[in-house]
């Protein structure tokens, strides 16, 4: 039944007209990959199977949702295939919540939860015990969420749960481990300009995002000095409360019994404190221009960028397909075809247009190419972005982008943990539980005309930032032909910087 309806959707839309049957040979002015195919392709398409309907996770079917009295919510699911259990807490915390005097504290909170021990466990004892149990404990804190998770053999599930509860509820923030974390951070600060990709990512984001936004700031000696244990504790206390926590429980256990054990471990955790205010949405402004970070290298790292869209944008499905055609669909996309395959200018040449973020992220077309072909690569990227707006797109490239998305969905949530994690995440983000189904239907409904229209609304070739990390003296003339070149000298720090910040430099 389900299969039939999906086949119908696919069949009907793929048969729809509106795509150009175009000259496949053209380059330059032609819009892109054509409809030309080989004899072998025809044979292969006859072997092609129908799309398998994807599984869309549902509360009740893929996970039982249990709310504790203190506001903590559980998503439980038995999975008896292997003797493993996985517990994953999702917490409303992140760099986006840092106050100006706390910049950098969220990252240290993550490291300290993982390594700083608990009231019951000294750091080294806990790590030794985890190693003995062959348990993986990991903590990650991002922009607007954090996870604390443990996975281990199911025979040790109770001990794993007890450790997870200790780490979440009674962390100790050991000073010695904090100092080690800071020494590691110091090393990263000293070497922040060693890698061209790292420079490009950081400095490009800093053009678009202010210091108040996590994307616009990075760790400095001063912030490092000011990230004290007391600040980390305070930040922890604001966020780690039961009403801000959801926990996924997946694995080889009796569900009812396990839920009771979790209730015993977390049920007496008192709720309370200031509610966490919703985050504002930051909308970056375009920064057209040519920017250069001069570094002596034999290959330039290049990004053409402008602000993109967020997950609430009605164009998001059309933009996803548009980006697949432009440069996100690897070898089936125009940028890869021209820059890599035709001209051999790069190993990696692509575009990305994130459509899943709470806030708009950056659209980027990126390439790394040898110094001598820097200007040529920029020109090709720019041309392809413009052509995307001019349309038309070929039937072949449209079908490839769309079928790749729809046929591939069967791989999503195909393991119980992923399905449960997905349901938990959707609720955390305030999104509808049937979002995956709606995405599937949304992509199914996109037409070639909608892709071109979305390109015109959401690509801004006139307002592109051209950002290059490369050998200045060799590429400056090429770049100057595109506009006035603004040089960016990334901050450099040495041991004196740390002394000035009151960190006493190195050992």
């Amino acid at each position, binding site marked *: 039944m389900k299969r039939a309806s999906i086949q119908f959707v696919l069949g009907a839309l793929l048969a729809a007209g509106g795509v150009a049957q175009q000259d496949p*040979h053209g380059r330059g002015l032609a819009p892109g990959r054509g409809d030309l195919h080989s004899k072998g392709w025809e044979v292969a398409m006859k*072997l092609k199977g129908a799309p398998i309907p994807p599984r869309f996770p549902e509360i009740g079917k893929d996970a039982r949702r249990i709310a504790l009295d203190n506001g903590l919510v559980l998503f439980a699911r038995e999975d008896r295939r292997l003797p493993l259990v996985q517990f994953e807490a999702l917490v409303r915390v992140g760099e986006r919540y840092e106050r100006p005097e706390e910049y950098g504290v969220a990252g240290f909170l993550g490291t300290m939860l993982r390594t700083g021990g608990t009231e019951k466990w000294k750091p080294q004892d806990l790590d030794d015990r985890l190693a003995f149990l062959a348990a993986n404990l990991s903590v990650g804190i991002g922009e607007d969420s954090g996870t604390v998770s443990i996975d281990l053999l199911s025979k040790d599930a109770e001990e794993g749960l007890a450790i997870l509860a200790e780490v979440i509820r009674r962390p100790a923030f050991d000073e010695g481990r904090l100092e080690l974390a800071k020494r590691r951070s110091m090393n990263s600060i000293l070497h922040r300009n060693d890698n061209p990709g790292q420079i490009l990512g950081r400095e490009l984001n800093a053009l678009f995002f202010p210091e108040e936004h996590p994307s616009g700031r990075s760790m400095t000696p001063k912030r490092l000095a000011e990230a004290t244990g007391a600040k980390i504790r305070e930040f922890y206390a604001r966020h780690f409360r039961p009403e801000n926590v959801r926990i996924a429980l997946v694995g080889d256990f009796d569900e009812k019994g396990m839920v009771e054990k979790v209730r015993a471990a977390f049920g007496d955790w008192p709720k309370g404190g200031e509610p966490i205010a919703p985050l504002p949405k930051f909308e970056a402004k375009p920064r057209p221009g040519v920017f250069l970070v001069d570094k002596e290298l034999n290959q330039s*790292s290049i990004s053409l960028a402008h602000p993109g869209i967020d997950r609430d944008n009605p164009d998001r499905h059309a933009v996803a397909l548009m980006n697949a055609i432009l440069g996100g669909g*690897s070898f089936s996309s125009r940028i890869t075809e021209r820059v890599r395959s035709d001209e051999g200018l790069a190993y990696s040449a692509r575009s990305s247009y994130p459509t899943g973020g709470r806030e708009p992220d950056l659209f980027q077309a990126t390439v790394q190419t040898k110094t001598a072909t820097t200007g040529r690569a920029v020109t090709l990227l720019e041309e392809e972005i413009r052509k995307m707006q001019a349309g038309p797109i070929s039937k072949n490239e449209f079908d490839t982008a769309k079928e790749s998305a729809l046929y591939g969905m069967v791989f999503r949530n195909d393991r119980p943990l992923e399905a449960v994690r997905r349901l938990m995440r959707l609720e955390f983000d305030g999104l509808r539980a049937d979002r995956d189904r709606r995405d599937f239907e949304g992509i199914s409904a996109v037409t070639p005309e909608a892709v071109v229209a979305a390109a015109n609304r959401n690509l801004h070739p006139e307002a592109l930032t051209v950002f290059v990390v490369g050998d200045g003296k060799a590429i400056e003339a090429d770049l100057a032909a595109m506009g006035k070149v603004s040089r960016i000298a990334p901050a450099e*720090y040495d041991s004196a910087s740390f002394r000035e910040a009151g960190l006493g430099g190195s050992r």
Partner: protein
Amino acid sequence: MTIPLLALALLAGPSTPDEPKIDVVKHTLKNGLRLLVVERPDSPTVATQLRFLVGGVDDPKGQTGIAHLLEHMMFKGTETMGIADREKEKPLLDRLDELWTALDAEVERQRSPFAEANPAVLEGIKDEIEKATAEHRKLVVKDELWQAYQRVGGQRLNASTNQDSTQYYVDLPKNQLEMWAYFESDRLANPVFREYYSERDVVHEERRLRTDTQPQSKFRETMETLIRAAHPYRNPVVGWPSDIDGMSRAEVLEYFKTFYAPNNCIIALVGDVKAADAIALVEKYFGSIPSKPQPRRRITEEPPMEGERRLKMKLDAAPQVAISWPTVAEGHPDAPALSVASRVLTGSGGFGGGRFGGGGGGGGTGRLFKRLVAPPEGRGIAINAAAMHRGGRYPGVFAATATPVPGQGLEEIETALLAEVERLAKEPPTEEELARVRNAIDAGWVRSLESNPGIAGAILEAEALAGDWKWWRRERELVKAVTAEDVKRVVETYLVKGSPCIGWLEGTRSPGSPRGRGGRPTEAGAPGGTGGVR
């Protein structure tokens, strides 16, 4: 060794309860192709992988990188795929080969200090190449195989080359396997290496991306050349720059014809597929491809290393000390104990490689961490320290590395690393340390059964190395059986009495005067500005 009874009870630790099993069906075709199938119907998908028993180690002299370049060329189509008119294409490809051969020869000639430069000749050939390429491009249908796999939802579509083997993989919905069999058998039987010369440039860009612009990679690449004077593991899989630039299409084709034979290939299919169906499918599509006699592999044996070797490099990178000792190949009776030695030194968990802990080098429970990074009595001298044993088809190395705390000299790091390795011979692993290794092996086994592509890779690795996929399981048992005495012996034999290769990566950041604190864009030509810190 004796340990207190109480400890024994505690250390009994994870036993092996109802250990999950794996059923692999192995089928060998008449032409020598081996097929491994694992039925796992949980998800309606299948992980596929073809592995060829040829890799960087087999690259001939002057052609380093050829196995990897061949891997790229395998995506360029066949007699019937990727081309609109094969008959029209043939003379064009011949013409392009002639022109490129002429160009490569002329470039080489002009490079001689005794030759006269003649840019006009080069330009002339390049013009001709451009014309012929444009003509050819009209017939080419780009990356059709890739596109077709995308059309049916293929995931993890890629290929990789390492020193010992080359593999091609894609995960597919279960009902798309016949298309896979059609494509993979077609490119094994009838490939056409079109667009070769632009792909050669792509590969050189890959080298720039992964090695030339990455100081740590350059250091590692150089260390590999230091520990091996003669064995081809000394060469990077991607190839040396001039070898990449000078490789001809005919040479790559010849290499293909020699090594890409069904009898040199193993296929794994893991997922929602019946073994009988998989066997019938592979027989139907691959059965008629003739086997080829394999040449004797002429791999230079590394002569014993006499005396210590040293490397010092000054690069824009975090300083590091790396010490390597030559050891043994996978399958050698001493390999499991060397693996245990490295695990005892490195440990697991805790301060990992990532920003927030997790796996990776420098775990929180190994001896190196407890001595060099976070000694119980106070501050350590390193921020990371780890050891590993890497064996392959041919003898491998045992490596220990550490990154100093900023400002810490490298000499003390070197001394401490060597001391900790020697201590492993004097104070062999405790029962607790060995129990951790055993438990990690057991849990690792269970976790490895979570992923279809993971299983495919593991059984192919074992089948390729040992001729038997069961080696995957057996190797774990051998590691679990290692005793403290075994570790002591191999540490003494290979590390304490062996000759080390010691590498110092010295950073270029000199302590002292502060540098520019730029951050805000300034006009071209202006010195680095002041202001915000980025």
